[in-house]
């Protein structure tokens, strides 16, 4: 029997779900006299009597204080009695096979309650009145449900049973590859969602011709995944022929010769003082922390899934990257998350959003909720992030998720050994995420939703938390030799990678499944979440099994690492794959790609009236503070638990009211020590339109600068690169990326800041139904992990004490190209900020000494919006005013226009409040650096900038704060 329990807010209680939908609908222009009520519900299938279901509802499912419920068999008219007059019902249910964590928990709880349910499914139920058919359809499609994972039912539910999958009948499938010509190969690559190039398809065909047999489906899928851009980075780690205005470079392996090479060179330079542990090899980069621990850091992107299903995409994005440190060495304990998003502006009118694209507001809400729900449930503080808005992210939002893990020094290496059991740990395998790895290497189109719905998933954070709990215990008891996560490519890539040097045999029918009906091929390539693979010596298996049992975590032996150099898969005793590991990992044909770059000619920036000394630029400051990239992100930040684990030292929001924007987050991963780690990031897509070299340099400068601003020693900062780019088949697009990589190499070397890991996501373009391409701007995220000996020496950015002098550190040039002042004024042109390596290194070193010596009361980096924005933020965060003299701004150009003094975005600059009695020390420590005193903190509530005795900006700090907080205060 199929029972339905509908749960409504009790009389007098707010209907929060309906209110939120109402607001979202209003934002999208579904206005008018209509009404909405919301319920949540459960479908419970089982041999249960009415009283039993009633009891479940009362004692388990509904809260008697704030909720009421209706329980009946599906089809019962009582379930269709509207809560208010003239309303019609709409059910939204997960599609079959979509993860439904609440249903799983509920089923277990019902069992615990002493009753039996065969299956449980959750749903949301809405009652609507007063909407026309067209608007109702729009409401369903745009707000109530996401077609990628959910189905909508109008009226009563049309089924009597919950589908649970049909049993699978084994049939070995081979693909007649040997006979295929080029056209057929490419058709197969596309239609089979392999997304391999013609030379790659030809190589595979020729390999099997040589073997005298055709591949099975699972062999072909394994090759496609292993060779996918997502898993192998074949483009950037490949041959590239690059030309720009001064250079012609033939790379054999572009990444190795730029970014990796810089790290290698630094490690060689440092010799015994090298503090890198494991770089560009494991699932995350690892550096030394203290005598007992290392730290592992990784940032990934989950762009395409987030475009289709923002909640699930971001949810599994953060869930996936958390498993990277967990799968590094013998397993790191995740200690904090970082998240950076790129969206189209949230105020785009609905009718300007192309077909197949979700409105950016909905994308943003879904992404934030997805990160929130996974990170918070895992008990990992989300401490750092940023959001960038640009119209070109409309079809391709970017979701960067990162995680830092704490790894005991003696657990930082892993090695699977011949004879080890292959153990699958954690979640079960389902049909979710099929073709995720190959899909992420393709461009999105208006019908991606229907094509790759299987790549979209919902995570189950608690499964991963349980997995983490047993993993760390098993690690500390030495129960396994190696661990890796099942990410993109599922078992295929996890087992393939771990056994690359040995060989592996897997019995696919042993893998625990979420439901019946999966073929051997689906089992192998499923990217179902929350799974890891261990290499377990046989003698430790009983202990591991008992440990997992005690915590309710599933662990299954699915095969063994055997010294054959081959990957062999069986299903029900029959061989379904037998591949040479050598061919799998090294057989991919080399491709030479062309890359070229010509920087766009510099155009003058028309300053107009803003360049004269007479202009009042107060309105410009308000506009910059209220621009979406600069404005307060408290709506996001406060939804994340940024203090769990108890290590929080500098929070993302600081100041007298806890609402100023911190430059970086600081935390203590070891609670009885004051040694800290610091997390920050830098990104400037707008500079990339002018020159990707200076964009990349500025992003590194910004990430490092943010760390230095809170007190980090610049010699202890490790960084990561994440390249998100458009279609690199176009030489200019690839050229712009290579040019950024060259900057990464140069700046890493000059600042002595090593890259320790990285990742790329290419082909971020959207093809509209009309065939038009929207490419994202070059989007290089630099994430920084700094370290600090004693967190008690950290400083925050809020002004502390009237009477303290304020110094500007670093030189300002006329660099308004790509600036936020240009943006709010609607201008283009001007010079892009150019990083000066020598000046940057000296400034960071000297300022660090001053902070460590205790001279600095507050410090803030100058970035988007320049001096004016930084000073405003420091003022309203601290609750004090100041009057600052622009004529004193250090600059090589004495004729520097006022507007550039205020808003130029030159690199390597800071605004510092210095303790009054330490000003002499501060000046002495920074005597080699361009630095000048602009004024002092005062106890007024006004911020003013003065030039030639005239106020060019004057504003109440409360008004500045209001302008900064309002835009995203959703």
């Amino acid at each position: 029997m199929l029972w339905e329990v509908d749960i409504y807010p009790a009389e007098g209680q707010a209907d929060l779900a309906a209110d939120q939908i109402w607001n979202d609908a209003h934002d999208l222009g579904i206005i008018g006299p209509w009404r909405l009520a919301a319920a949540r519900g459960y479908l419970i299938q089982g041999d249960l009597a009415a009283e039993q279901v009633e009891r479940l509802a009362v004692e388990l499912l509904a809260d008697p204080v704030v909720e009421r419920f209706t329980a009946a068999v599906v089809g019962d008219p009582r379930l269709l009695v509207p809560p208010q007059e003239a309303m019609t019902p709409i059910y939204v249910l997960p599609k079959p096979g979509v993860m439904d964590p609440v249903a799983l928990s509920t089923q277990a709880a019902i069992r615990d309650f002493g009753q039996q349910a065969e299956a449980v499914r959750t749903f949301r139920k809405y009652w609507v009145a007063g909407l026309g058919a067209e608007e109702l359809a729009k409401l369903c499609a745009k707000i109530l449900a996401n077609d990628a994972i959910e189905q909508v039912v109008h009226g009563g539910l049309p089924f009597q049973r919950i589908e649970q999958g049909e049993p699978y009948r084994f049939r070995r499938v081979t693909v007649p590859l040997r006979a295929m010509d080029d056209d057929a190969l490419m058709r197969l690559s596309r239609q089979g969602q392999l997304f391999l190039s013609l030379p790659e398809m030809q190589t595979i065909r020729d390999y099997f011709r040589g073997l005298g047999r055709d591949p099975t489906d699972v062999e072909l899928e394994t090759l496609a995944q292993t060779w996918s851009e997502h898993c192998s980075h074949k483009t950037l780690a490949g041959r590239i022929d690059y030309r720009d205005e001064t250079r012609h470079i033939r790379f054999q392996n572009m990444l190795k010769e730029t970014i990796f090479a810089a790290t290698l060179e630094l490690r060689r330079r440092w010799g015994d003082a090298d503090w890198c542990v494991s770089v560009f090899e494991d699932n995350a980069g690892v550096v030394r922390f203290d005598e007992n621990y290392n730290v592992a850091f990784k940032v990934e992107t989950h762009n395409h899934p987030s475009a289709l299903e923002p909640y699930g995409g971001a949810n599994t994005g953060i869930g996936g990257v958390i498993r990277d440190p967990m799968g590094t060495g013998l397993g790191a304990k995740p200690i904090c998350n970082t998240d950076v998003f790129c969206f189209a502006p949230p105020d785009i009118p609905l009718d300007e959003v192309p077909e197949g694209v979700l409105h950016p507001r909905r994308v943003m809400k879904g992404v934030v909720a997805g990160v929130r729900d996974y990170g918070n449930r895992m008990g990992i503080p989300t401490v750092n992030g940023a959001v960038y808005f640009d119209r070109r992210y409309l079809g391709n939002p970017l979701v960067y998720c990162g995680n830092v893990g704490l790894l005991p020094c003696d657990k930082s290496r892993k090695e699977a050994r011949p004879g080890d059991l292959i153990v699958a740990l954690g979640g079960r395998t389902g049909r979710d995420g099929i073709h995720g790895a190959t899909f992420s290497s393709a461009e999105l189109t208006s019908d991606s939703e229907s094509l790759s719905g299987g790549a979209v998933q919902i995570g189950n954070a608690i499964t991963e938390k349980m997995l983490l709990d047993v993993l760390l215990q098993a690690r500390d008891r030495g129960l396994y030799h190696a661990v890796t996560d099942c990410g993109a490519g599922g078992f295929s890539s996890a087992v393939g990678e771990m056994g690359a040097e040995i060989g592996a045999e897997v019995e696919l029918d042993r893998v625990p499944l979420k439901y019946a009906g999966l073929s051997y091929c689906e089992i192998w390539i499923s990217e179902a979440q929350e799974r890891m693979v261990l290499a377990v010596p046989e003698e430790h298996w009983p202990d591991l099994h008992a440990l997992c049992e005690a915590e309710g975590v599933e662990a299954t032996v699915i095969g063994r690492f055997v010294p054959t150099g081959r990957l062999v898969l069986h299903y029900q005793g029959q061989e379904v794959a037998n591949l040479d590991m050598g061919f799998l990992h090294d057989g991919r044909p080399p491709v030479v790609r062309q890359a070229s770059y010509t920087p766009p000619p510099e155009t003058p920036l028309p300053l107009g009236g803003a360049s004269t000394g007479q202009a009042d630029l107060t309105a410009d400051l308000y506009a910059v503070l209220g621009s979406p990239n600069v404005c307060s992100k408290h709506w996001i930040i406060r939804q994340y638990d940024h203090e769990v684990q108890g290590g929080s030292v500098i929070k993302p929001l600081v100041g007298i009211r806890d609402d100023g924007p911190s430059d970086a987050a600081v935390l203590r991963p070891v609670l009885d020590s004051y040694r800290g780690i610091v997390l920050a990031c830098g990104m400037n897509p707008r500079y990339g339109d002018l020159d990707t070299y200076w964009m990349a340099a500025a992003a590194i400068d910004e990430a490092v600068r943010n760390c230095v601003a809170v007190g980090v020693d610049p010699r202890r900062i490790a960084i990561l690169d994440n390249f998100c780019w458009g279609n690199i088949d176009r030489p200019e697009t690839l050229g712009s990326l290579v040019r950024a990589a060259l900057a990464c190499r140069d700046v890493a070397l000059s600042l002595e800041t090593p890259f320790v890991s990285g990742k790329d996501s290419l082909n971020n373009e959207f093809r509209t139904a009309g065939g038009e391409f929207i490419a994202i701007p070059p989007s290089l995220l630099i994430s920084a992990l700094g370290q600090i000996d004693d967190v008690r020496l950290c400083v925050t950015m809020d002004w502390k004490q009237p009477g303290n002098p304020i110094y500007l550190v670093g030189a300002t040039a006329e660099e308004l190209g790509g600036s936020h002042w240009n943006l709010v004024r609607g201008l283009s042109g001007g010079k892009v900020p150019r990083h000066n390596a020598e000046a940057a290194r000296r400034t960071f070193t000297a300022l660090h000494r001053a902070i460590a010596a205790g001279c600095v009361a507050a410090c803030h980096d100058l970035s988007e919006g320049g001096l004016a924005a930084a000073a405003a933020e420091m003022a309203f965060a601290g609750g004090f005013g100041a009057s600052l003299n622009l004529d004193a701004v250090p600059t090589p150009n004495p004729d520097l226009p006022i507007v550039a003094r205020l808003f130029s975005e030159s690199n390597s600059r800071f605004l510092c409040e210095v303790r009054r009695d330490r000003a002499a020390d501060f000046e002495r420590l920074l005597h080699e650096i361009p630095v000048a005193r602009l004024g002092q903190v005062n106890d007024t509530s006004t911020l003013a900038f003065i030039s030639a005795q005239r106020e060019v900006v004057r504003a109440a700090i409360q008004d500045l704060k209001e302008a900064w907080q309002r835009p995203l205060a959703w």
Partner: protein
Amino acid sequence: MASPRVFILRAPGTNCDVETAYAFERAGARADRVHVRRLLESPSLLREYQILCVPGGFSYGDDIAAGRILALQLRQHLQPVLEEFHAGDKLLLGICNGFQVLLKAGLLLPPDEDGVVPATLTWNDSGRYEDRWIHLQTTIEQRPISCPFLVGIERLELPIAHAEGKFVPRNGETLARLEAAGHLVLRYALPVGTDCPQPEPATHSDGRLPFPFNPNGSAANVAGVCDASGRALGLMPHPERFIDTVQYPRWPRGWTPDPPSGLTLFRNAVRYFA
């Protein structure tokens, strides 16, 4: 007496157990983190301990509702041993998710005559999760119940981090009864002193402080409640997140509550057994 032993109950999704154990140890106790499956197998384990703490997190994902499933397990399978524990002059503490669990398991507030729990914790008025520091005061004057955890404490500053922390009684009479009996020991409060000068905000007609001072819309600004003995306390804020100066958000401004508000609460618990 030797330092008291603390049983930190862990379930799938519990995630504040490590720092809560650390906080108890900083306060002088000895803490063990034990999985609920272990306790279900051998309930008598609890007899070795003086303090039972259900820490924060998302037990069973907070699926269905926050704390509901773990509460059900405690009620269904562990009621006798919990009653025995409590009767033995021992202490019970629920923090955040632990508060939700204890309240929904009926271990904090006695049920009304019809057997229904008199109050619940439900969705914040904002409809979303919120992490922020708030001010609290204890109802120290005319307190009919003495709560050992709060001895000597008048005001605290602690962070909250929850989505379902709004305290809702069944009705006004129930609220008045709980208030009169002294159960409502911890309230959200306005800041005092010069550290946080604020204009006096408008208070709701029912006495509730506006957001963010009352961060979730709780009736009567309730942030924590104790049982009739005072020895069982549940609270939404996280005392384990303020046991060291550098956890305080405004420490770089040169002033912090001393000793840290949270540490006092844990020390009080340890001192009860001195």
